[in-house]
């Protein structure tokens, strides 16, 4: 069972998000970095699948050299191999990113055989282009469905199907994808584990394969990031403590929701 997970290194903002002076990136001076949430769950799902069915997880990322941190993090929670498509850290457009990842996956498959399952995040937390996984899967001829919050697979048979659940309002849809397949997963598919001390130590020894890409830019390019103008709300304080309850209920009455 061979699973490939694509992950993206993103800033980890709290209450505010600032932009660098040149407007080309998020100012991460006071922020940490993390794996984009959907993809962190993708790694966890892949690791769980191999724990159940055997096999190995390869984690692939495209980004600056520091994105190796995200590969090591994945290794600390159970991934087996890490591959970095190195960039200069500038924002790559979705077409270029997809072309570079496609090429990297083709090379990995040419060397070690096909992956049974490709796992992408539904969309990245930062640029949110909603398309890289779809483009890669299309280029590789694999079926892909996005929004997946549950995976069951019959890996023993080797040519089985992936049963995937997609959350919809008040329930879920079921898809049956013939393997080799691809999925775009969403947070909530699982609760990712924390690395153990042993996992952390092992991840330090992870050999990261670094590859270069000559993929050409696509049609979309970043000009400038800026914060939206938000309507300034004058917050009306209805009270302090439980004594505010009547004022709250008055307000609910006025809104007609009682």
């Amino acid at each position: 069972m061979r699973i490939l997970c694509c992950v993206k290194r993103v800033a980890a903002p709290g209450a505010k998000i600032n932009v660098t002076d040149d407007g080309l990136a998020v100012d991460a001076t006071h922020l940490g970095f993390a794996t984009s949430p959907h993809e962190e769950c993708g790694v966890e799902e892949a690791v769980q699948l191999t724990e159940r069915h055997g096999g190995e997880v390869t984690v692939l990322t495209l980004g600056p050299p520091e994105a190796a941190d995200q590969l090591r993090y994945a290794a600390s929670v159970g991934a087996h191999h890490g591959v970095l498509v190195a960039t200069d850290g500038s924002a790559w457009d979705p077409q270029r990113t997809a072309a570079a990842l496609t090429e990297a996956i083709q090379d990995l498959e040419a060397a070690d055989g096909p992956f049974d399952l490709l796992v992408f995040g539904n969309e990245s937390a930062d640029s949110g282009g909603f398309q890289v996984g779809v483009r890669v899967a299309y280029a590789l001829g694999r079926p892909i469905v996005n929004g997946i919050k549950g995976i069951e697979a019959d890996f023993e048979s080797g040519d089985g199907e992936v049963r995937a659940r997609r959350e919809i309002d008040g329930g879920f849809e079921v898809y049956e994808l013939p393997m080799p397949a691809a999925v775009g997963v969403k947070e909530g598919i699982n609760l990712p584990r924390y690395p153990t001390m042993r996992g952390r130590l092992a991840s330090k020894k992870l050999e990261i394969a670094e590859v270069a890409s000559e993929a050409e830019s696509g049609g979309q390019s970043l000009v400038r990031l800026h914060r939206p103008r938000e309507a300034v709300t004058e917050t009306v304080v209805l009270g302090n403590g439980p004594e505010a309850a009547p004022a709250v209920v008055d307000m609910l009455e006025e809104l007609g929701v009682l």
Partner: protein
Amino acid sequence: MLLVVLENDRGSMDEAAREALTFGRGLAAQMGMPLHGALIGADDAEMVSEAGAYGAEAVYTVAHEVLADFGPEAWGEAAAELVRRLGPGAVLAGGSERGNEVMAQAAARLDLPLVANCIGVQPDEGAGEWTMTRQQWGGSLLEDAKLVSELPMMTTGLHAVAAKPSESAVEPVAEAVEVDLDQSLARTMVKDRVVLEAGVTLSTAPVVIGGGRGVGSAEAFAPLEELAAMLGGRVGCSRAVTNNGWRPHSDQVGQTGTRITPEIYIASGISGAIQHWVGAKASKHILAINIDPEANMVVKADWAVIADLHEVIPAITEEIKRRRA
């Protein structure tokens, strides 16, 4: 024409499609093009008329065996095929989960760029260059992007524009388009649907009672449940809560959870990180309950109660019971 791919499911049009038509109407006027719609997998007179009410002058319907239920590959190929046949000047869809997915499939098949979640578009003035403003970080940050493409393909940020019928609506011309779709495209079609809960859901609830880290435990959500039930609403929560395993992820309001649009959102014990705010901001009104008057959620709310939610929520419930008695 400016072609809007209209998201629909089992005979009804999605709100995202109405938003896309509303957005597209302005853009089509700016570009001096008619607004046309495409209904994939549906040949439904009511939906055709509804598209007309939002300004579509013509609606193309595509029915096929592999479009019998939703499937991203078949729907994406159908959209791509419509583009090849009709040669539109621009293609647009609502930025819902399906909308973005179908457009990504179509763009991949046409080998064209796709600009997702746009909130503003400056059409090309002949040089083949477009300027778009699009959402990053779920809308917490905006990106001005340049697009160079023979055909601009885009989606509109979900709930970034409110759907509004056209003032000069006409009954659109409906045209069924025959497309040749390969049977293999059915491999990603929905096989089954399971309904877990009937009635009001988090995304449709008129009232949402949200709880954050400040609630403290899974058990401590009981008073929020009681209040939500009294108001015909639903309980939502922040990412901290689902990460702690206190509530299922399907209750999460946020960038990686559900975008809610209630009449009122009562956010209790929630600091208001951008991850959460993205999911909450389309609420029509917000009441924040927090012990910290400087909390981001309090600052952004319409109303606030500066207090311990464990005291205030039961007090609100009691007050409602008293008035109803």
